[in-house]
């Protein structure tokens, strides 16, 4: 009977997850050495992607205009832009994250073939644009038109899923600071993304990270840019409101 008692206690512990306390950035859970590496431009490899994005931003395609011909002086004009994403696109009423907005701009305004999610070019562009908001607090809208998406993201976060029958909340609210394999469980704030992950040896988007999470609990992995992950991204950004953007971050 003892295992039953242990099981019951575990279930109680999972159920008694505290209401969202103060959310901390993912870098708070890194070793001091890795935090220093993230802050040090001479040692953080993710800056290569930012550099590439900066170059793409001002490169003129064969037909059509370069990004910089509309967004002149991006260091000022786009400073803080990334803090408002994901946001609801006024024209279509759809939720767009930074990747979605850049792709929309590229296809509709520049009349260019889209980069595609998770391509090196898209990662470079998002890393560059997000890096322009480095240090500024996340300021997404979660009310008004964004409310249904936010609620959907919240429901996704709280819903048990996968073969392990875990919800995001059970770990990322209830077990924060504890160990999962070799890593420390964080609040799941995506403020460092696109980030250089040591596991990937590469820069990846938040949706790539979410797919890894879904795989971890043996749940359905949704596509890059899928409505499920977009809504979840909005919910996570809403939770992380006020935290500074750290892109390009380093994560384990």
């Amino acid at each position, binding site marked *: 009977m003892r295992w039953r008692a242990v099981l019951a206690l575990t279930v109680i512990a999972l159920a008694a997850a505290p209401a969202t306390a103060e959310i901390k950035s993912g870098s708070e859970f890194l070793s001091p050495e890795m935090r220093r590496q993230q802050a040090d*431009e*001479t040692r953080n490899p993710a*800056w*290569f992607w930012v550099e590439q994005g900066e170059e793409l931003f001002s490169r003129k395609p064969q037909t059509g205009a370069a990004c910089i011909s509309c967004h002149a002086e991006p260091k000022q004009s786009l400073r803080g832009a990334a803090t408002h994403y994901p946001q609801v696109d006024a024209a279509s009423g759809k939720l767009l994250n930074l990747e979605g907005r850049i792709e929309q701009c590229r296809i509709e305004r520049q009349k260019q073939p889209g980069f595609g999610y998770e391509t090196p070019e898209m990662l470079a562009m998002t890393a560059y644009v997000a890096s322009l908001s480095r240090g500024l607090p996340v300021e997404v809208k979660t009310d008004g038109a964004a409310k249904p998406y936010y609620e959907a993201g919240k429901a996704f976060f709280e819903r048990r899923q996968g073969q392990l029958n875990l919800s995001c909340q059970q770990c990322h609210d209830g077990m924060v600071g504890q160990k999962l394999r070799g890593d420390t469980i964080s609040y799941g704030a995506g403020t460092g993304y696109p980030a250089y992950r040591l596991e990937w*040896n590469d820069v990846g988007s938040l949706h790539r990270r979410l797919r890894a999470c879904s795989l971890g609990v043996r749940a359905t992995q949704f596509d890059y840019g899928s409505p499920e992950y977009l809504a979840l991204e909005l919910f996570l950004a809403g939770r992380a409101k006020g935290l500074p953007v750290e892109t390009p971050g380093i994560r384990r």
Partner: protein
Amino acid sequence: MPFNARITMPAEARAGDIIEIRVLTRHPMDRGGQSDGKGGTVPRMILNRLTATYSGEQVFRLDMNTGISANPFVSFTTRAVASGDIVFEWREDGGATYTRTARLVVT
């Protein structure tokens, strides 16, 4: 953009000073061995050597193998002796080389 490098060092130094040189490199450092889908394996493709030459003299050499991570970082020191170029050269599997030059002014 398979290769890129970020070299950080002081632009100026006094003669006799020890200067720190930091080299961050963008390279996938593919150790190879994966299936290529046609019955063979993907060959190794890494940077296998980095050398730094200061005023014509080699001051640093790093032989790299498959244990080195992608996008490697290395830092080393040298003594500032005379104004001149420090030439960094990477040798890639297959024979390609990449070069970057940084100027050091010694006062």
